[in-house]
C-alpha cells in the first residue's frame, strides 16, 4: 500500500466516521443523563430524509439542515415524553422510534416524490460541498506534509469539521461547566440532583434534545454531505455502530472520537477492498469487516478487555421513592 492510498483511506475514514461521531456524541449526552438511546438510528434516518427533502424543495442546504434537525428533535421529544414524563421503558421507546422513522421516511418519501422512497438527486447548491483550504494546491509538492494537508486536512465539508470540533466542546461542557456537572450527576443519582434543588426533568429533556440536535446534523450529513439525496434505509445500521462506539468509548468524549475513527476506518477498508488477504491467515471476507464493529463491542461489553460500565441510573425512569 503506497502513501497516496493510505491518505485516501484516511480521508475516507474521516468522512465515514463523521456521522458515527455526531450520533455517538448524541448518545453520550443522552446516556450520561441517564436516558438510554437506542433510537439514534431512527433519528438519523428521519433527519437524513427531512434534510434531503427540504434541500430539494427549497434549494437551500441550510434549510435542509434545519429541517433535519427539526425531524430528529421531534423524535427526541417523543423519546423524552415516553421515558421522562411518562416514565416508560426507554429501550422500547427507542425501538419504536427506529421503526417509526423507517416507516415514515419511506411512506412520506414515496408520497412526496414518487421515486420509490428516494428524494430527487441534489444539485451543488443543495449539498454541503468540500471546502478547499487556502494554499492546498500550492503546498501539495511539499513532501509528506503537502499531501496530508491537501488530502486529509483540507477538502471536507463543513459538517466534518463541526463533528471534530464537537469532541473538545463536549469534553469541555461535560467536565468544565455547571451544566455538565449536573448532567453527569443526573445519570448517576437523580435523587441527589433533585434534592439539590435542580429539576431532573428539565436536565434530562435538555440532554435528550441535544441528542436530537446532533443526530439531526448526522442525518443531514448523510443525505446532503456524503450522498446527494436520500435513499431508503440509508443509515444502514450506522446508528447502532454509533451506539457500539459509545460503549466502546465507555461514554467518554475523546475515546468516542477514537472509536468512531476506528469504525470509520473499518468501513473504509471494507468499501475499498472486497476481500483482504492476510498473509498466513487467508482471506478475510468483507462480511467479517462489516460485522467487526459489532463483534468488538460484544467483546468490550463482555468485559474481557476493560469492562464498560454504563451510567448507574441509566435506563431507569426517575420516580421519587416512598
Amino acid at each position, binding site marked *: 500500500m503506497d502513501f497516496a492510498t493510505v491518505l485516501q483511506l484516511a480521508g475516507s475514514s474521516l468522512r465515514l466516521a463523521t456521522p458515527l461521531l455526531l450520533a455517538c456524541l448524541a448518545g453520550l449526552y443522552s446516556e450520561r443523563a441517564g436516558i438510554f438511546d*437506542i433510537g439514534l438510528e431512527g433519528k438519523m434516518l428521519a433527519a437524513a430524509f427531512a434534510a434531503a427533502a427540504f434541500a430539494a424543495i427549497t434549494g437551500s442546504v441550510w434549510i435542509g439542515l434545519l429541517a433535519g434537525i427539526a425531524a430528529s428533535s421531534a423524535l427526541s421529544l*417523543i423519546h423524552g*415524553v*415516553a*421515558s421522562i414524563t*411518562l*416514565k*416508560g*421503558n*426507554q*429501550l*422500547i*421507546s427507542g*425501538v*419504536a*422510534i*427506529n*421503526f*417509526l422513522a*423507517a*416507516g*415514515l421516511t*419511506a*411512506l*412520506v418519501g*414515496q*408520497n412526496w416524490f414518487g421515486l420509490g*422512497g428516494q428524494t430527487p438527486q441534489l444539485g451543488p447548491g443543495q449539498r454541503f460541498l468540500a471546502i478547499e483550504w487556502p494554499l492546498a494546491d500550492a503546498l501539495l509538492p511539499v513532501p509528506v506534509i503537502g499531501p496530508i494537508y491537501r488530502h486529509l486536512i483540507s477538502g471536507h465539508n463543513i459538517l466534518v469539521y463541526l463533528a471534530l470540533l464537537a469532541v473538545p466542546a463536549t469534553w469541555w461542557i461535560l467536565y468544565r461547566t455547571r451544566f455538565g456537572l449536573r448532567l453527569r450527576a443526573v445519570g448517576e443519582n437523580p435523587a441527589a440532583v433533585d434534592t439539590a434543588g435542580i429539576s431532573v426533568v428539565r436536565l434530562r429533556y435538555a440532554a435528550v434534545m441535544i441528542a436530537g440536535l446532533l443526530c439531526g446534523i448526522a442525518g443531514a450529513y448523510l443525505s446532503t454531505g456524503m450522498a446527494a439525496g436520500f435513499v431508503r434505509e440509508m443509515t444502514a*445500521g450506522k446508528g*447502532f455502530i454509533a*451506539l*457500539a462506539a459509545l*460503549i466502546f468509548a465507555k461514554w467518554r468524549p475523546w475515546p468516542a472520537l477514537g472509536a468512531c475513527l476506528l469504525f470509520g476506518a473499518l468501513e473504509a477498508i471494507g468499501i475499498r477492498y472486497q476481500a483482504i488477504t492476510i498473509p498466513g491467515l487467508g482471506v478475510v*471476507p468483507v*462480511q*467479517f469487516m*462489516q*460485522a467487526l464493529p*459489532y*463483534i468488538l*463491542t*460484544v467483546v468490550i*461489553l*463482555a*468485559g474481557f478487555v476493560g*469492562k464498560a460500565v*454504563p451510567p448507574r441510573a441509566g435506563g431507569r425512569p426517575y420516580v421519587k421513592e*416512598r
Partner: protein
Amino acid sequence: MTAPLPRWADLVLIPALNLLLAFLVAGLVVVFIGEDPVEAVRLLLVGSLGSSYGIGFTLYYATTFVFTGLSVAIAYHAGLFNIGSEGQAALGGIGVTLVCLAVPWPYWWLALPFAILGAGAFGAAWAFLPGYLQAKRGSHVVITTIMFNFIASALVVYLLVNVLKAPGMAPETRNFPEGTFLPFMHEILAVFGIRMSRTPMNFTALLALAAAFLTWVLIWRTRLGYEMRAFGHSEPAAVYAGIDPVRITIVAMLISGAMAGMMALNVVMGFQHRLVLDYVGGAGFVGIAVSLMGRSHPFGVVLAAILFGILYQGGAELAFDMPSISRDMIVVIQALVILFTGALENLVRAPVERAFLRRRRKAA
C-alpha cells in the same frame, strides 16, 4: 404503591385503549398523505379477511409472528428484553436448510422433527452467547442482541454468497427436495373436502398453535416457568429461593431463541422451499410489537399475531389499491403499536388508575 387495577382492566381495557390510540395516530398519517382512512381500513379488511385467499395469507404471516412474538414473550417473563429474535430467526433458517439439504428426505413428516430440531437448535445457539454474557458478565442483553442481529445478518450473507449458494446469480440455496415440502393448508383442507385458495399457509400454522399452548404450560404451569417468573420479577428473591440466575437466564434465552428460529419452518420449509437472502424481513422485530400487544401472554400473542397478519396481508392489498399508502405503512403502524402499548403505556394507565381509585373512594 398504586392500587392494582381489576384484572379485566389490566388485561383488556388498557391494551384496547392503547391500541385505539395507535390506530388513531395511524389514521392521521393516512389523512396526512391525502387518503381516506375509513376507505383504507375497508380495503385493508377486505384484502386480509374478505376471501379465503386473503385469510390464507393473513394466517401465513400470523404463523410467523406467533413464533417471534412467543420468543420475545418468553424472555420477557424472565426479565429479559430479547431484541435478537431477528438474528435468531435468521440462524434458524440456516438450521432448517442444513437439515432439508443434508438428507434426501422421502416424507415431510419424517423430515419435520429434524427440521424443528435444526431450527430450534440454531436459533437457540444464536441466543446462547447474549444469554451467557448477560448471566455471567452482566453485559446488557438488549445491546448484545442488537449487535448479534447485525453479526447474524453478515454471517448469513457470507454463507449464502460463499458456502450455500446454488449456481446462478441470486444468493440463495438450491431448492429443497420435494420430500421436505410441508403440506399447504389448502391441501390439508382438501382432504376434508373444504375448498380454499392456494396460499402459502401451511402445516406450520398448527405447530404455531401448539407452540403457543406449550408456552402457556411452560410459563404458568411448570416449575421452570415459575422460576423464570420469580427471577423476572425479583432477582434477589430468586437467588433466595435457590434459583440459579445464570441457569435461568441462559435457559430462558435458549428457549426464546429456539422459538424465534422455528419461524423458519413456516417461511423456508413451508413456503419458499429454499433459503433466500433476508428471508426474515423484520419478522423478529414484529415479534416485539406482538409480544407487547399480547402482554406477553401466549393467548394475547396469538391474537396480536393475527392482527399483524391482517396488517401485513391487508397492507399489501391496500398498497395495490391505494399506491400512495405503500407497505411501509405497516412499519409505521408497528412502530405506533410498540410506542403506545410499550413506551407510552402510562399515557393511558395513569388516568385509568386514577379513575378507578376515584370510583372506589366513592363506593367506600
